[in-house]
């Protein structure tokens, strides 16, 4: 068979979201590939220039449907840095807790997606079933399932509801049992490991050079996690372990995310122990930001998310720029895919946890 280009997307079961992975195949082997993005471009960065600072929070939620809280969080942190606001202690803990719950929810959605990518619907349904519990937690916390509009400049919108700690403990206990179930279903299955081991190799050097961050980088054995290297909120007061893996392949990426879910459970437990029982959760921010620039970054479930803000003294940002972790990771996909088979494309790309909202902005 001669070499030919195959479009995988923009309407294709492999792509989670609207994008196009063009692969050039020789028989079943991939010789070249080219990611085509931009189908979901909404002009986000231009839109926010016409909105006041608080109005941007729900828009930041919509950067990624999978982990909306982390994006509104990083936006609020950026504005707080520009306005020089100190967030109350309890609000910091609630934010960190929401971050970790969001990380679990986002990783569960990724797990569901790779289930269908690898051709097994059971994993998909189990993961969505368990994700529902975390969505329920968020519903009781802030009333929404996916786009929360919960973070505020200077704190969070409301305090945790009654019985919050009890519900959270129950969910975490249940979820830890489920993690063992995933372990038995996937990790102990030879066929699942066959589909993941040794695919999409990317050495630590290549990963750093490509600017890859997050679980994909840690799966290449690099100890780099913003929560650890540049701690924000209260992460320096919590004890937790960074999850890394040395295998540099798809299997390592899978393992790192699964370990991170367990680690997030531990972090939430630690937060519940150390969180002040009561106190203010919000300070009132000024209406307009001063002239100047601010930058804040945090560990998104998909990598390092960063926002750069230029204030011009009015109540609207002069410029708000977003660094999306996936935009960078997607540009490295040709390197990941080269030499593998067509059947490996969903497996390799699924491990990146693609979310087009933040990539195209």
């Amino acid at each position, binding site marked *: *068979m001669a070499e*030919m280009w*195959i479009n*995988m997307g923009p309407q*294709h*079961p*492999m792509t989670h979201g609207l994008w196009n992975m063009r692969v050039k195949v020789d028989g*079943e082997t991939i010789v070249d590939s080219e990611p085509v993005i931009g189908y979901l471009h909404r002009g986000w960065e231009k839109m926010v220039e016409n909105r006041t600072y608080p109005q941007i929070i729900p828009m930041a939620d919509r950067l990624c449907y999978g982990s909306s809280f982390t994006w509104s969080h990083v936006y609020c942190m950026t504005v707080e840095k520009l306005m020089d606001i100190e967030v109350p202690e309890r609000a910091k803990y609630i934010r960190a807790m929401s971050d970790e719950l969001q990380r679990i929810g986002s990783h569960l959605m990724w797990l569901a997606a790779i289930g*269908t*990518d*690898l*051709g*097994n*619907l*059971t994993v998909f*349904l*189990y993961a969505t*079933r368990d994700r529902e519990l975390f969505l329920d937690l968020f519903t009781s916390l802030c009333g929404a399932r996916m786009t929360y509009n919960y973070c505020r400049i200077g704190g969070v919108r409301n305090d945790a509801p009654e019985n919050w700690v009890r519900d959270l403990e129950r969910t975490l206990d249940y979820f830890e049992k489920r993690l063992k179930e995933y372990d038995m*279903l996937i990790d102990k*299955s030879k*066929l*699942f490991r*066959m*589909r993941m081991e040794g695919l999409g190799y990317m050495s630590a050097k290549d990963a750093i050079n490509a600017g890859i961050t997050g679980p994909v980088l840690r799966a290449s054995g690099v100890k780099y996690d913003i929560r650890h290297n540049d701690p924000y909120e209260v992460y320096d007061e919590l004890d937790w372990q960074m999850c890394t893996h040395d295998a540099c392949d798809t299997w390592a990426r899978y393992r790192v995310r699964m370990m991170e879910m367990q680690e997030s459970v531990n972090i939430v437990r630690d937060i519940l122990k150390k969180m002040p029982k009561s106190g203010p959760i919000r300070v009132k921010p000024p209406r307009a930001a001063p002239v100047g620039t601010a930058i804040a970054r945090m560990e998104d479930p998909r990598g390092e998310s960063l926002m750069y803000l230029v204030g011009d003294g009015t109540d609207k940002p002069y410029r708000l720029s977003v660094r999306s972790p996936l935009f960078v990771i997607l540009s490295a996909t040709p390197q990941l895919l080269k030499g593998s*088979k*067509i*059947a*490996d*494309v*969903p497996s390799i790309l699924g491990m990146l946890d693609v979310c087009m909202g933040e990539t195209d902005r």
Partner: protein
Amino acid sequence: MYLDLWGLVGGLVHWLMVDVIGTILNWLHIYALAEWLGSPGVLNIVTILVVALIILIVGMLVSITLIWQERKMLGRFMDRVGTQVGPFGLFQNFADAFKVLVKEYIVPNAADRLIYPLAPILIIGVSMAMFVTIPYSQGFYMSNSSLSLILTLALFGVIPFAVLLGGWASNNKYTLIGGMRAAAQTCAYEVPMLLSVASVVVLTGSMSLMEIVTYQQENLWLIIPLIIGFFVFLISMISEIERVPFDLPEAEAELVEGWGTEYGGMRFGLIMMSEYARAFVGSSLIALLFLGGWDGLLPEFIPAGLWFLLKVLLVFTIFIWARAALPRVRTDQILNICWKRLLPLAAINLFIAVFFKSMGWF
């Protein structure tokens, strides 16, 4: 206890043609037509047609039952209730069939006008033709040829050819790759499958499914001496009927719907239906060759056909279980499993069978 299909239908046809229609015609003084209708040749042909129709309908009904069983059991495996249309979700298949019937018939512009409509006919026809050789019990069968086993496997061999034709004629890159994969996979897996079948033939000394079952009734179920062959045949059969974990030809994650991407409407429905028809034939082959066919407890009280269907459903449960628990395997890994694992195992199994036979133990 079993139903003698040929005797029953033959008697009914004879009663209808000779006693009812013949008498009326004689009364009308049309003696030549009455005599022609009552001649053995005409009676035979009508009987064969009626029996074939009954076998086709029963086969289709069992296949539909398998679809229902898969939907329900897969749902339970996945912690959901499964289909809910009608009592116990029994009407889902009919709702689906109605839905695909009212769909528009679309032929892609670039498709081959001759081969594109022909390939599904070939697939569906061949899949339905496989019902012919499957006996449900001593009396309930269509044909009792002494080569029925070989005929079934030969019909299985036509499928990859038709799939390749359909995938190629659709003129689409996904379908082309899917068709090529199907051809490579099914051709490869026929080798260990035939080797494990050969071991059965060596032990029983017959290629007739009826005689193989009779042999098992008199001696013992062949799964006991040929346990390796049973597993080889099971895995090859999963691959042959293209189910998870070997459903590469229609790998929906990377190839949309594989070789069948361009087929819509009732063609899609019938292709799906024919897949379950082949799944039924595959499960019944396993039941017939290794699990004693309709051999069961209390043969005087429980109909033999019921035992057979029970075993078919049991074997299909294994298929469903595999689908619930396993991911799809890659093309090269599938071929690796076939050539490096299954083929040696099948050869060992054949040696065991020959050893048993030459020692005179069976």
